[in-house]
């Protein structure tokens, strides 16, 4: 009897020690983020209740809910919906093209894998703006792709300033964010499980659907999150390739802080976006079976 109680007690102490170790291990990172992120974030929250002077300075007084009320404006909803749609499409396409790509790299030989992955990242070590301009140049009516297609007897391409152009540019810009986590997950794949499925006479596709894909889920989830969330706030690529014909959420928020100099509204809008995104991420993770 006594020994059983003692064992339980020991177990609990061990558990608490484990838990404490967990906190200690992560402490440097968590403390850093609390100091250099959470604390500044509270400033934004405070600003969302402040008011704007006639020259656009923020008055930390005259607290009000005006900015928050405006967040629910129909114009905001329209802009948000457009950005949501773009982000979803971007994520889907990144997944569709990125997954086979990550799979392919993960199944190459030891020596090739590292090189192939780094080759993916290298284009992104050039300057973002110049890269986007180069893409714009390629898509132009007078650009090289257009010239080639005309030489082949076809029409000049009219992609620039369309939604297609924006999507191509977005997929280009965000696909590494999908590939890296997917690779990290797939590389760890226990291929013996797939082999076992084949031994059990499962055709290739079934083996993939029932074994590989589910096992790579953490990578899929991580990649989707890393693509969807930033692309929700993207506005530079859409502006350059899409002609600024429509206003996206990222652009709208930036303009509140810069050209409109309405920091309270910008703060309220950003906070609202963050709350929604955080809730959505939590929901997505719960569905995916991971903890959050």
């Amino acid at each position, binding site marked *: 009897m006594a020994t059983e109680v003692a064992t339980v007690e020991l177990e609990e102490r061990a558990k608490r020690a484990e*838990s404490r170790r*967990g*906190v200690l*291990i*992560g*402490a440097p*990172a*968590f403390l*850093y*983020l609390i100091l*250099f*992120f*959470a604390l500044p*974030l509270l400033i*934004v929250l405070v600003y969302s209740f402040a008011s704007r002077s006639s020259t656009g300075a923020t008055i930390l007084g005259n607290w009000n809910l005006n900015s928050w009320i405006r967040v629910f404006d129909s114009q905001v909803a329209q802009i948000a919906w457009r950005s949501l749609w773009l982000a979803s499409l971007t994520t889907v396409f990144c997944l569709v*093209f990125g997954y*086979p790509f990550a799979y392919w790299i993960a199944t190459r030989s*030891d*020596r090739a894998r*590292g*090189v192939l992955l*780094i080759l993916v990242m290298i*284009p*992104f*070590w*050039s*300057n973002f703006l*110049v*890269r986007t301009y*180069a893409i714009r*140049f*390629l898509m*132009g009516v007078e650009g090289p792709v257009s010239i080639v297609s005309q030489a082949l007897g076809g029409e000049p391409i009219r992609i620039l300033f369309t939604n297609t152009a924006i999507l191509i540019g977005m997929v*280009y810009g965000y*696909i590494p964010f999908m590939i*890296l986590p997917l*690779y*990290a*997950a797939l590389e*760890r794949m226990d*291929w013996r499980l797939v082999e076992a499925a*084949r031994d059990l006479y499962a055709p*290739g596709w079934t083996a*993939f659907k029932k074994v590989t894909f589910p096992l790579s889920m*953490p*990578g899929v989830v991580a990649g989707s*999150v*890393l693509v969807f*969330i*930033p692309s929700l706030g993207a506005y530079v690529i859409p502006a350059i390739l899409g002609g600024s014909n429509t206003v996206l959420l*990222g652009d709208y928020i*930036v303009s509140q*802080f810069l050209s409109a100099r309405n920091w309270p509204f*910008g*703060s309220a809008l*950003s906070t609202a*976006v*963050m709350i929604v995104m*955080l809730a959505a991420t939590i929901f997505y993770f719960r569905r995916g079976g991971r903890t*959050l």
Partner: protein
Amino acid sequence: MTESTTAGRWSERLLGANGWLLYLFLYVPIFVLIVFSFNDNQRVAVWTEFSFRWYGEMLDNDAVLRALRNTLIVAAVATTISTILGTVAALSMERYRFRGQRSADGLLYLPIIIPDVTMAVMMLLFFAQAINIASHVVRLNFGLGTISLAHIAFNIAYVAVVVRARLALMEPQLEEAAADLYASKWQAFRRVTLPLIMPGVAGGALLALTLSLDDVVVTSFVSGPGSTTLPVYVFGLVRRGVTPLINAVSVVMLVASIVLVGISLGLQRRSGKTSPLIE
């Protein structure tokens, strides 16, 4: 890994095709970028004639060189620290259970969720206050330090996501086995866990580096005298018209990265280790 574990022959071909097409897709704009760095014209897209003019001008242009230097310093510091911090955060979240873990999770996702400009504004305000409070004791200023601190803040989150994806797939049994063999926690970490998560850590580091090299909005708000970075400088050029000078700078950066990576891979191969991107 034998042939029979991957899909059949034709799907193998499809995968390969997809791979190479994607590389094409990624590199064609880079090719354009490189070609136009040799353009003699002031405007990028109008080809005049071949010349090394912009490379010469780049070497002469102190402002650009200093911006490049600043970018590299910040990127190096931010990547290193954020990779370490991001990894420990990931370990803590995936291998242990503790109270307040839900909040920690939220905290680790917020830097990814927050709009760039919002983070820029809040870091500016925060640093301004911090510098003001600290001024009673020590005289601080905005500069490479504040930029690095801001970069680390958002990079930690990205690194953590990648490493966590990796950790989620590892069975704890391996580490338990190490414990059974009387390995200390540190030994188990160093010899079992770390090598196993290396691809995740390296992937996270690559991501952090890329983010740091390209950051504009946050950097422009928290930089100080003499600490302008290259992406901010380039964005400022837009107002005046971007010249092929920046193409030349990009090409130099690309070549430098490739050389660095090539050297590090070569060194590792020589020392018998394989790339950190594989186990």
